[in-house]
């Protein structure tokens, strides 16, 4: 059994882990990263990237279908589109593979040693990795747990057969005729919307009273409307009970308490994600936990010295960019630099149609926190670029502190607004005030003008409305 000794050991090569390892390598730390599957984690292999590829395919298909149906207001027609889903999946897989290779190359460039296999803690300083060639012992001064999360399985709807997780949905080789989506969070709705655009009859079963429970009603209403126009049936307050014995339908209990069958060829279960800690040997360490998650402090330190945890395994929000920022920070801490988590916001993006972006608190959250606020909301219906894109739904909304004009939160819903998330994040992280945004020239004609107008509106003098 070969033994490796290093300064920094990262367990898990997802977005948090690989960024941590690359940064550590840049800082000259002797770094090892362990990954049991493919480099890039859920995000790159079965999450963010592949889902966005499939969403893009669905959008393009929908545009062509609209043209074929003569629904465009600008007179474009085309013959009925056909999709070879196998080829679409292969195209998606190609992108994933390119990124896999890219991560490997970046790690190598930073002189990070990659060990493939499953890691298990032996004690607070030692990890055993089961590799193809046998177990390897790795001793490290600092260990970073970045094992991520996995889809939650429902006991009465176990994955297998036609009950699939998001991972399975991204690997379908045929467009299902009927798809039941259990769980109306962002993962279920993103994929449900994509399949609806590809012609699938989609039914969403959500136990709560609204879809996308993390966002406020103002933001989710345009999404709900569009789902309806796509023919997606959304059953709120409904609980899945299990499959029929034949496996051709999901049994649910509706909000009214009635039993109902939802015929489906595939059942997509997206009821959340749980941290991956099984088999890691965490019981050897007895770390303080926070529910199912590993409890961390502002330096991503766990209750044990020399052991850090980053990303989904540490709890909400389970977002790749949060993990990346944590990873970078922990690498710098391991290199002895003074660092602590001092971010003011973590943007959240939902790639439904229309898209939702939320950065910082909503008006309701800010008020609840006891802040006196003012808001400005500018609709895309009054934005020239939105009109010319034929996407006028939605708005940009700014929440600011009443006395100081300090921008606390910015949210938007609309076509393509995900790209505005960076400007929202920058404004809040820099501590911008309403005047800062209002006083910045926003190029015309762009969707971004709505941001400036929302700030002007909060100040009481919007121009274009």
């Amino acid at each position, binding site marked *: 059994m070969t033994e490796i000794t290093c300064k920094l050991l990262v367990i898990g090569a997802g977005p948090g882990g690989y960024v941590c390892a690359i940064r550590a390598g840049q800082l000259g730390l002797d770094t090892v990263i362990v990954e049991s599957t493919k480099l890039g984690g859920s995000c790159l292999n079965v999450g963010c990237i592949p889902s966005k590829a499939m969403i893009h395919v669905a959008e393009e298909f929908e545009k062509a279908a609209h043209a074929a149906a003569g629904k465009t207001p600008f007179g474009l027609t085309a013959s009925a589109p056909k999709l070879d889903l196998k080829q679409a999946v292969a195209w998606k897989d190609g992108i994933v593979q390119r990124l896999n290779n890219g991560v490997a190359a970046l790690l190598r460039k930073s002189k990070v040693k990659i060990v493939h296999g499953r890691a298990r803690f032996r004690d*607070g300083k030692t990890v055993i990795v089961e590799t193809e060639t046998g177990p390897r012992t790795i001793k490290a001064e600092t260990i970073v747990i970045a094992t991520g999360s996995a889809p939650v399985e429902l006991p009465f709807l176990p994955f297998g057969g036609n009950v699939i997780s998001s991972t399975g949905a991204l690997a379908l080789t045929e467009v299902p005729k009927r798809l039941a989506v259990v769980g109306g969070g962002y993962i279920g709705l993103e994929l449900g919307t994509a399949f609806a655009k590809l012609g699938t009859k989609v039914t969403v079963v959500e136990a709560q009273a609204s879809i996308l429970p993390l966002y406020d009603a103002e933001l989710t209403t345009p999404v709900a409307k569009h789902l309806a126009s796509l023919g997606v049936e959304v059953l709120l307050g409904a609980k899945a009970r299990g499959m029929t014995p034949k496996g051709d339908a999901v049994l649910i209990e509706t909000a009214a308490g009635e039993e109902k069958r939802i015929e489906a060829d595939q059942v997509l279960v997206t009821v959340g994600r749980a941290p991956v800690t*099984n088999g890691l040997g965490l019981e050897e360490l007895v770390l303080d936990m926070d*529910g199912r998650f590993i409890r961390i402090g502002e330096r991503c330190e766990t209750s044990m010295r020399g052991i850090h945890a980053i990303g989904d395994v540490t709890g*909400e929000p389970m977002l790749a960019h949060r993990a990346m920022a944590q990873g970078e920070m922990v690498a710098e801490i391991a290199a002895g630099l*003074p*660092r602590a988590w001092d971010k003011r916001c973590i943007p959240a993006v939902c790639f439904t149609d229309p898209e939702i972006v939320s950065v910082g608190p909503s008006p309701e959250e800010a008020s609840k926190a006891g*802040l006196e606020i003012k808001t400005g909301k500018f609709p895309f219906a009054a934005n020239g670029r939105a009109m010319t894109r034929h996407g006028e739904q939605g708005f940009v909304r700014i929440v600011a502190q009443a006395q100081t004009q300090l921008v*606390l939160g910015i949210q938007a819903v609309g076509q393509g607004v995900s790209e505005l998330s960076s400007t929202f994040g920058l404004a809040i992280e*820099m*501590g911008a005030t309403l005047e800062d945004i209002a006083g910045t020239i926003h190029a015309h004609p762009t969707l971004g003008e709505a941001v400036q107008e929302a700030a002007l509106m909060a100040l009481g003098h919007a121009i274009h409305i």
Partner: protein
Amino acid sequence: MAERIIKLPDVGEGIAEAELVEWHVKIGDIIREDDLLAAVMTDKATVEIPSPVDGEVTWIGAEIGDTVAIGSALVKLKVAGAAGAEEPAAEPEAPKEAPKPASKPVAAAEAPAAKAEAPKTEAQKPAPTVEPPKAMTVPKPTRGVVQATAQDPAPRRAPGEKPLASPAVRLKAREAGIDLRQLSGTGPAGRILHEDLDAFLLRGPEAERAPGLSQKSAVTDIKVVGLRRKIAEKMALSKSRIPHITIVEEINVTPLEDLRATLNKKPAPERPKLTLLPFLMRAMVKAISEQPNLNALYDDDAGVIHQHAGIHIGIATQTPTGLMVPVVKHAEARDIWGCGIELNRITERARDGTATRDELTGSTITITSLGALGGIATTPVINHPEVAIVGVNKMMIRPVWDGTTFVPRKMMNLSSSFDHRVVDGWDAAVFVQRLKELLENPATLFIDV
């Protein structure tokens, strides 16, 4: 019978390893639940590790002095029941320490009496729970809370709680070790700008202080190293070993001051200006000739008092790096001028850092004087292993009753400490009275009786 591995539990304080300092068991011992297995030391405390079960010790995992990682095997026990029979099977989590988890169902059947103190209710509380009646040294950690839904998600910071500054300003402040909460920003909405931070770095925290009172919560950690560490050790040694007795006596130094003024009128290189200390040194030499047991080093480990014929007087001296005690060697062989010259020389060398090791060691008794800062009375700490120290307090003019009227007199207190193990109060008092007598009648300093 089965084998049970006891691992070093998390002993708190977020530590990853601990030093094994004591074994309470050895191989072959039969132990009961809660019997102590071993003691480990972290950098904060020594923690006793109790056994969670009854059994026979079959293997011991470390030697005293070894550093043991948390979670590594400490001892192996032969316990009753089948392998891994440590928890009822009702527990959804797999038994952690069972060497063969595969045999769990069997274990459940055979070990109904196994400890069942991790019922499901605990799964809702992620924090380790201590079982109150046992009050063990180490709280038994609750493990495997996999089931519990995240009832209370990680607390979010309230908006506005953090200082308002751009990421670049925050990074710069962190690298400079500045807590941005100390600064008030001049930017819009009180944003801390690069200029604010630069100004703060230039002027320091004093200039930044806003009018009015403010709370401060900064804690500065200063490592105690070098001379400071030496002083700390020496003082602790002295105070912990020596039972001090301190006597404060007042001295009328009016005649001594008159004499000193006269002598200092015509200073010459071989007759420098004298402070009070050379006179005190002469007085001590005379007093010690009558009480030689006070000029001694007490080796309390060996139980021997080394009484020295040579009188080497240490002079407690404040230097830029801290307290040092240069030594005037053989004071008994120096006259008043000799004492004065040597005193000036060694204290000067101590202050400018050129004193040799020889000049800083070998004292047999010590004087401590803070001059004008000397206070009314002090409680000098004996320079271990000496047995006496004479402290000089400040001189001041005080009204003294001469039998008919109050007269102004130059008065000065001496605060002297003695090692009460080897110096009785009586002897100490006699010594102090002798010093008083000599200093109040300075002519006697120069007359050999």
